[in-house]
């Protein structure tokens, strides 16, 4: 069962990554990336790394992707940049899909599956990760902050109007 689920998720991850590369429309690409990040988060969950999964969803799929989309919107405005969408009629598919999703959620509420057999493993939780970050991995953790500083300075240097 687990294996089957894993392969399903992995297939989604790979397919969305492919979609990201193949699609010429940047917004489509960004959306594929969201799917990809989400499926990776699911894999984290399967590995009992709840904290990582949550962080993945909140930070990458949430915050960073929103930033990406904004950036794309600001930098590439107008229709002629994205080109006419040949798949416009397919947008109608969104209605049945939305409906389907609604049904699914309702089903989930109705069926109430059994609780997970195992309680969340201690090693994947926030506390465990926090412990590791401040003990064994203190140095890489701090180093990451330096890395972020460098990124910050770099962005400043590149973004300044006049050097």
């Amino acid at each position, binding site marked *: 069962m687990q294996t089957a689920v894993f392969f399903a998720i992995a297939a989604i991850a790979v397919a969305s990554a492919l979609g990201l590369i193949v699609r010429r429309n940047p917004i489509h690409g960004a959306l594929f990336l969201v799917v990809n990040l989400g499926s990776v988060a699911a894999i984290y969950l399967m590995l009992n790394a709840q904290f990582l999964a949550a962080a993945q969803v909140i930070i990458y799929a949430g915050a960073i992707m929103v930033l990406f989309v904004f950036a794309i919107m600001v930098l590439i405005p107008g229709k002629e940049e994205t080109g006419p969408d040949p798949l416009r009629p397919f947008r109608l598919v969104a209605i049945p899909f939305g409906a389907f999703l609604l049904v699914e959620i309702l089903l989930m509420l109705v069926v109430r599956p059994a609780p997970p057999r195992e309680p969340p493993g201690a090693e994947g939780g926030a506390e465990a990760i926090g412990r590791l970050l401040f*003990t064994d991995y*203190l*140095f*890489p953790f701090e*180093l990451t902050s330096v890395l972020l500083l*460098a990124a910050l300075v770099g962005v400043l240097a590149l973004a300044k109007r006049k050097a």
Partner: protein
Amino acid sequence: MDFPAVSLRAILPAIVILTTAALVLLLDLLPPRERKGHLAVVSLAGVVAALLATTWLWGGESRAFRGMVVLDGYALFLDLVICYAAGLVVLLSMDYLRERGLESGEYYALVLLATVGMMLMASAGDLIVVFLSLELMSLSLYVLAGYFRARLASGEAAMKYFLLGAFATSFFLYGIALVYGSTGTTNLDRIAASASRDSLMMVGVALLLVGFGFKISAVPFHMWAPDVYVGAPTSVTALIATGSKAAAFAALIRVLVTSLRSTQPDWTVLLWGLAAATMTVGNVVAIAQSNLKRMLAYSSVAHVGYMLIGLVAGGVFGTGAVLFYLLVYTFTTAGAFGVVLLLEHAGGEGVSLADYAGRARRHPILALVLSLFLLSLIGIPPFGGFVGKFYLFGAAVRSGYIGLAVIGALNTAVASYYYLRLIVYMYMREPEGVEAVSTPSFAGGLALAVALVGIVVLGVVPTPFIDLAQAAVTPLLR
């Protein structure tokens, strides 16, 4: 909670540089805001302080942060190399940036942050730290490569460097994951203890080599080097060619020699091929180049090939030879790029071979100095390049890799052609066109003088440095 002891002593040189970087960023906000010369002086002072810290720590040996950081002779030796590279680059940058009106605190801060990354690469005791410090260095260099935003080639260089660097990083990261999968740890010592040789490990080693191969620009992962070297500001090119290469070699050697010892027979064969391909492609392609920075880029690719010979040879002798060569190479290459930088026009022109025709007439001293650096690159005594090559090829022959030594020696004969061509252009051609004569500033002159003294000292009294290099690698090989 059981916090690890925070022993900043083990990373003191890096901490000094990091503090300086922060200081530079702060000072940047204070007046005088028009002139930034003092920031370079502060950066330089930081580098010198780091050098002093390195010498103060000399002989120490410890591990800190739960084995994440290793302080040993090896790390300290490379700290020296990296500090020299960073110091020379800061000196060379001062007037180069001012003449182009591009001085800024960010530039020096990024140079210093890149230096921190390089130093930590040399003292990393864990693949995670190797990765993070490599990224710290790379990220800073990506930005620095595109620092001349007004110049299209500079932006292109940054973009290419970044894209291909990200490509290589993904392989590197995957390699770390596979090694972790095979051994269950990312700690270098514990990887060594597991002595794993399964297929996961093999692919992991290959991917790690890809990542390092990119950073040291070994064939076929060298493609970025010429474009980036040409497009980046020349001062940054000097840093990429010297410091980043030294750091990547530092991490590569430590990872290969300590943790991947179990697979030595496998990667030795691989490196044999890489070394032969790298030096041959580098030298042969350099012949066709008409742009000086491009030619030096291929030349630096070729020199990576020579250094890989030492890794193939292995042992205290071979590995020590690589370290010694790195030291020589850093001085020589930084010096050569320094002269190119001082002779470059404000718009980035003046780096083609034709521009160097008759340069000796107008800049007799700079031309002479560049000739000496080129002679060291060829490997003519009494410069350091000769001793370094002798030592590398000697190590190869000693370990029985006579074929590789022959290829290397043959390559030096080929290489003498294009280095010599530059000397001939400078001394034996009539100058073309008119050109304003600018005299190199004090800072630039000082940088060249330090580099020149370096290659002469390393060539005339190499023994103490060879001893240092051998002493530095001895603990790795235990």
